[in-house]
């Protein structure tokens, strides 16, 4: 981040949300690859997915516009006056996918814990060798 702050202000501020989502994504990715515990890997996976979700949501942000509902006496019916709802709709789907993946993963973890009694990756690897 130090490299970013040394640059001219407006450029960074204009892209701040991209820095945010990319950082989240990378933290998650690192946690999934390097985490020592399977539950931590799973939590890191969620952080990574939130990184993607915020990327899409930030993309559709617009100042001075409103929710895409056409009402009488409301804002004029031009595209500029409304927020693009499509990224939100897509991310609702992505959240559903993320929840189901987490559910399946937790079910798998319960079965691993029942059989091996641990979710620490190093201990698990030892027990798998037996």
């Amino acid at each position: 981040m130090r490299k970013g702050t040394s640059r001219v202000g407006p450029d960074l501020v204009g892209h701040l949300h991209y820095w945010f989502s990319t950082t989240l994504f990378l933290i998650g990715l690192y946690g999934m690859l390097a985490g020592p515990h399977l539950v931590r890997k799973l939590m890191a996976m969620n952080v990574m997915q939130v990184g993607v979700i915020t990327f899409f949501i930030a993309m559709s942000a617009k100042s001075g516009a409103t929710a895409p509902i056409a009402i009488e006496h409301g804002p004029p019916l031009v595209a500029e006056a409304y927020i693009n709802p499509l990224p939100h709709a897509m991310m609702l789907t992505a959240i559903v996918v993320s929840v189901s993946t987490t559910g399946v993963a937790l079910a798998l973890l319960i079965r691993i814990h029942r059989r091996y009694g641990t979710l620490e990756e190093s201990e698990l690897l030892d027990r798998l060798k037996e």
Partner: protein
Amino acid sequence: MTSHLPILIVVIPLVAAIMTPLVARMNVRAAQVLDTGVCLTVFLCATTALLRVLDTGPWHYELGGWAPPWGIEYVIDPLSAGMAMLVSFVATLVSIYADAQRRQLPEGRSGLFDSLFLLLVAGLLGIVVAGDMFNLYVFLEVASLAAYGLLSTGGTRAVVATFRYLLLGTIAASFYLLGVGYLYAMTGTLNMADLTTHVPTIVGTAPFGVAVTFIVLGLAIKMAVFPLHAWQPDAYAYAPAAVTGFMAAVMSKVSAYALFRILYFVLRAEGAAAQIISVMGWVAIAGAVAGSVMALAQTDVRRMLAYSSVSQMGFILFGFSLLNPDALTGALLHIVNHAVMKGCLFLAVGVIVWRTRAVTVNGFSGMSQRLPWTSAVFTLAALSMIGLPPTAGFFSKWYLLRGAVDASAWAFVATLVFSSLLSAVYFFRLIERMYFFTPSDEGVRRARLFEVPIGMLGPVVTLGAAVLLLGLLSHPIVVTVVRAALPEL
């Protein structure tokens, strides 16, 4: 009814997936018949669709009557119809074969197994017919989630392997989604055909390169391309044979299809896409060699086959990377041929494991005396993997070789020959043991050892026959279907 065929291909297995657990509560047998019947129906639908699009050109279906690019669109062209046929063909055979697997499940769970299987089929077919980048992501995840469930039915070791696959699969899907997000941010569209028209305006920009990289990376993990294949051998070795057979046959192929569709049809192999395609070629060479070498080092036959898949995926990827019609023909043909022969091999090994509990290369000694039919079909499919005429494997390798010579890609010519030689070594090692060694003590010799239920042997023999037929009919298949499925370059 026929006007809604493109969506029926996805909806029929999806609805049946919800119905099977309910049907199985009343009658387990009926649920299995439903499972097979649905797969067969989809196969017939896909065949009808293929015949129609060969005649009249691509078939665009607007979901709910909303016109693209705003609405979701399904597109059936010779490529997607051919893939749908492949998926449903293998699915039909596997749903019959899975009978033995269903019996090993706890009481009352076989309906759920069928349900997951149909969800997987629906997801794969959805990827194939989707004409929309985000829809493709959704179906990719539907298929993956169903696959996690199916893989984990193979015992606790399988569960650990599945969890690893789940993490990697989710990384892959997130990369893909992020890549789609970049493309959407630049063009404001998700529709594949509409995106293609926007490509020339964004092709030189840096975000375009990032988007293509993310998408290719994501799909490459799903395809288990070397060096991103780490999840595959464990997942395949511990899962039930029917699941492994189906996934090894078609799941990685459908990801390969998605990659092909996006790189060539959507992005038109321009700019960053072209650069990535040439990098892919070198990765493919490394994968083809590394996969074969690692296959040679395995003692577990299922792991050997899994590594052999990594090597064969290298061939397919290399065919994609040479921008000439022969190589692309070879790659597409190899997708079909490899699906059939690898499915056949895994199912045959499944029969052997189920009957004799032998999983190692040594354990296969004298197998031809115990299970003559299975051994014969295994040998046929193995010869096809090596690439001996008149089996299917020879013809796809022949087209790949012609394409490589045309492009003067000598490194690949050498790789293809070397990798085929290595596969000859590891398969002949096995064939020799099966036919010329006396049976080892590994594996329990049980009463009625020679008998295998027709439900298991039938699909294996059918796939074996398909290996031969695809070889003998390879010329008409190439002329009528594969040529029609190639992109205009």
